[in-house]
């Protein structure tokens, strides 16, 4: 043990040595932030306090660059939109009332940087973290999903990152027994070096079981339970969101530690069951997960959300590494831990439940009274280490009163040129052979090919409630086995659209996600998001960000569904080059009986009529065609029309309720050609498509106009369905028939491609790259 290791900085010591140098810069704090901490405390912080503030005031935890923009979500959420919302932005995860006494909570979070450093563990612990967020709301996690983005599919580093990320997500989620019901796999040059690993979790609970993270009630005990605390990810959080990524040195002269955490999904599975038993027995007053920023975050947030006072005996924390300092214990990001506030008379029963599950649980503190003056200043969090005070701070200043930046915003000067560079002059396929080749080329391209290589590594069956998952447009799980009530979820974002027009691009992400949920027959209810962007210190990136937030919020207001939560990940960039702005949007819908969900594949009944809903315009800016065939990005993205999306959604839900629609697939990247082929391959049946007369086949097949879906309607229902569309002003076109005998997809007058050939093209790409 070195002298440095054994030295513990106390408050007394801090008062006695006001001028001692502190490594605040290495911890990611700026001069003025450090000065502000001194001002709050009226002295220099102790090492432990400095660790707490630095980690909690990091971009990742404090949202210091995004806060001023995110407020716009609240400002645009009307009371009516809030009517189904039981908890919103600010809680661990948003909660919505889905009817029959059920509430559902869902959230997406990023684990981008750790997954680049160590793909398997980084992605695995991303799943672990989001699942604990959901548990902290009192819910049982019921499904996970994983929107992913990587560099070019054939890049060398993608061969390292993608298989690791997929195995990490699969391993952790599969071991937890949570079905993976959806996600995305997108490839783009800008994600090389900045992969995006976003993890989604959905949980369900009875409305009356909602638990919010509060530490109220003087004398209540603070119990840390789950895994022991080690040296994992010390300082990770501040490193995560800081530009000095990768060179954080923890205090105390310890050798450099890896900023990654290793997860133990088994411990988390046991923790889930243990938590649910605790909730069932009503043993918990407040609960908080330990994620980024570990105990620093859990204690300061619990305390400031309650009556403001908390006392912690830090030496009580069960450790798994030797000689850990108080600062290290407070910043450790060891996984699979939770913190609960429990009334004294329930402590024994709490401990008994933990013992049943063999979960370590320890009383580490209690809720204390605060004076009026303390309350006004942000409460009191008092932490001792073997009798010496190492932290004595107002917790609100740690958890909620971090710095707020109004960063410079500027529309990049290059934006005009980008928008002016329209795809009109690109060479288009004209002959039948060229069109055929283009269909196959797009089908096999990395962004459009089958995701089975990824999704076959995820358990989608466990819990026995999965009604739809890959390759359907949305994932659907049953929540109530008696009534059949369930929820559907989809996440989407086309970063190229957002790059061309951040405001409308975000709306387009919302529109696609909304559409994916409604084509399954569910009614969209609420929205979550994960904002992945470059450096907030770049005014151009901040412009993208602020535009995207506004677009998403305005879009939600137009659709009447609230944003219930989200996550921001900045600094996704290599040198000066930022990733495509990627506001991943997740829409959650409700379906009152999952038995009437609409599948994506054709062929439930032979001879179904295929109807194209919506209007096709020539819209190829940012399209998959321009990207795959010409490596082109420019022009404007497709126009977004949320009223049209809403109408389309209503038509689909009505079609599902009345049994008029047997399959539906939305049109998005790759346009009609891609949608037809996918629905045929998924349904394992042939189809014949007649392109409407007088239209340009290329535009009809590859344009990416929004608010469109392809539906299969039994012949007996055709009249009723089209009458309904006409009556409600929904544009529709009869575009083909399902033909099981054909064994091919025929685009009449152009080409007929056998299903086998289509399947080989669609399914071959990822195995060839990653096996």
């Amino acid at each position, binding site marked *: 043990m070195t002298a440095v290791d054994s030295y513990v900085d106390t408050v007394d010591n801090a008062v006695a040595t006001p001028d001692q140098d502190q490594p605040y810069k290495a911890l990611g704090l700026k001069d003025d932030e450090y000065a502000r901490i001194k001002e709050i405390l009226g002295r220099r912080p102790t090492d432990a306090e400095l660790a707490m503030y630095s980690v909690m005031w990091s971009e990742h935890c404090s949202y210091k660059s995004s806060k001023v923009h995110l407020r716009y979500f609240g400002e645009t959420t009307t009371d009516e939109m809030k009517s189904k919302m039981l908890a919103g932005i600010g809680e661990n995860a948003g909660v919505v009332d889905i009817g029959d006494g059920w509430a559902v909570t869902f959230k997406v979070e990023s684990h981008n940087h750790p997954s680049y*450093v*160590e793909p398997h*563990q980084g992605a695995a612990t991303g799943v672990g973290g989001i699942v604990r967020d959901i548990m902290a709301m009192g819910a049982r996690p019921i499904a996970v999903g994983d929107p992913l983005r990587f560099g070019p599919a054939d890049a060398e580093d993608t061969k390292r990152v993608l298989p690791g990320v997929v195995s990490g997500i699969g391993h952790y989620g599969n071991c937890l027994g949570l079905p993976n019901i959806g996600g995305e796999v997108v490839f783009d040059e800008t994600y090389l070096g900045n992969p995006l690993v976003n993890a989604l979790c959905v949980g369900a609970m009875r409305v009356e079981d909602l638990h919010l993270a509060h530490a109220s009630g003087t004398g209540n005990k603070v119990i840390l339970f789950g*895994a022991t605390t*080690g*040296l*994992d990810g010390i300082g990770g959080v501040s490193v995560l969101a800081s530009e000095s990524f990768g060179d954080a040195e923890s205090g105390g002269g310890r050798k450099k*530690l*890896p900023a*990654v*955490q*290793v*997860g*133990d999904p*088994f*411990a988390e599975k046991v923790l889930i069951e243990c938590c649910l038993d605790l909730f069932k027995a009503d043993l918990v007053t407040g609960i908080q997960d330990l994620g980024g920023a570990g105990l620093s975050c859990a204690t300061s947030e619990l305390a400031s959300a309650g009556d403001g006072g908390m006392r912690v005996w830090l030496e009580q924390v069960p450790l*798994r*590494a030797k000689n850990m300092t108080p600062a290290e214990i407070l910043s450790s990001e*060891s*996984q699979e831990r939770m913190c609960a506030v429990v009334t004294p008379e329930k402590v024994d029963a709490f401990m008994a439940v933990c013992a049943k599950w063999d979960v370590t649980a320890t009383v580490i503190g209690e809720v204390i009274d605060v004076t009026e003056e303390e309350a006004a200043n942000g409460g009191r969090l008092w932490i001792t280490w073997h009798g010496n005070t190492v932290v004595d701070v107002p917790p609100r200043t740690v958890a909620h009163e971090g710095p707020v930046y109004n960063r410079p915003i500027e529309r990049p000067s290059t934006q005009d040129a980008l928008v002016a560079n329209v795809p009109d002059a690109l060479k288009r396929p004209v002959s039948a052979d060229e069109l055929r080749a283009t269909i196959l080329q797009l089908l096999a391209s990395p962004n459009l090919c089958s995701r089975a290589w990824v999704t076959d590594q995820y358990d989608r069956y466990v819990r026995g409630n999965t009604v739809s998952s890959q390759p359907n447009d949305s994932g659907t799980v049953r929540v109530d086995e008696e009534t059949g009530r369930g929820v559907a979820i989809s996440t989407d974002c086309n970063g190229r659209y957002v790059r061309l027009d951040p405001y409308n691009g975000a709306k387009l992400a919302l529109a696609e996600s909304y559409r994916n949920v409604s084509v399954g027959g569910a009614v969209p209810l609420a929205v979550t998001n994960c904002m992945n962007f470059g450096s907030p210190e770049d005014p151009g990136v901040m412009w993208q960000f602020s535009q995207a937030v506004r677009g998403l919020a305005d879009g939600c207001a137009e659709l009447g569904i609230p944003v219930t939560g989200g996550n921001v990940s900045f600094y996704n960039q290599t040198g000066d080059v930022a990733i495509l702005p990627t506001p991943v949007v997740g829409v959650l819908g409700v379906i009152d009986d999952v038995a009437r969900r609409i599948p994506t594949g054709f062929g439930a009944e032979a001879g179904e009529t295929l109807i194209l809903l919506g209007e096709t315009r020539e819209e190829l800016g940012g399209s998959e065609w321009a990207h795959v065939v010409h490596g082109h990005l420019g022009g404007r993205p497709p126009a977004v029309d949320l009223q049209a999306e809403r109408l389309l959604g209503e038509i689909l839900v009505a079609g599902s309720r009345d049994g008029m629609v047997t399959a539906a697939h939305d049109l998005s990247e790759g346009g009609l050609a891609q949608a037809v082929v996918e629905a045929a391959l998924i349904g394992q049946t042939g189809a014949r498509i007649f392109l409407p007369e007088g239209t340009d086949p290329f535009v009809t097949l590859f344009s990416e106009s929004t608010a469109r879906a392809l539906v299969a309607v039994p012949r007996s229902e055709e009249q009723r369905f089209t009458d309904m569309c006409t009556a409600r002003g929904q544009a529709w076109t009869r575009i083909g028939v399902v033909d099981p005998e054909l064994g091919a997809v025929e685009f009449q007058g152009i080409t007929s491609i056998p299903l086998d050939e289509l399947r080989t093209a669609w399914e071959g790409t990822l195995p060839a790259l990653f096996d």
Partner: protein
Amino acid sequence: MARVIVDVMPKQEILDPQGQAVAKALPRLGFSGISDVRQGKHFELEVDDLVDDATLEKIASSLLSNPVIEDFVIRRVS
């Protein structure tokens, strides 16, 4: 031809859930006196005599182990 052994172990400061699971199971099975268990990987390579130590080092660090979370030891046994 030589046989080379590479043992790869989780770094000391990194969680080793596998080792812990074994350590916890032992007393349940009636075995006492084992205070700690760590579990790693054991590779046996049949190696041409021309392959030098630097190459083995590279193989171990780039393919057989993940330096972010693991350490390794190389031994030539014959």
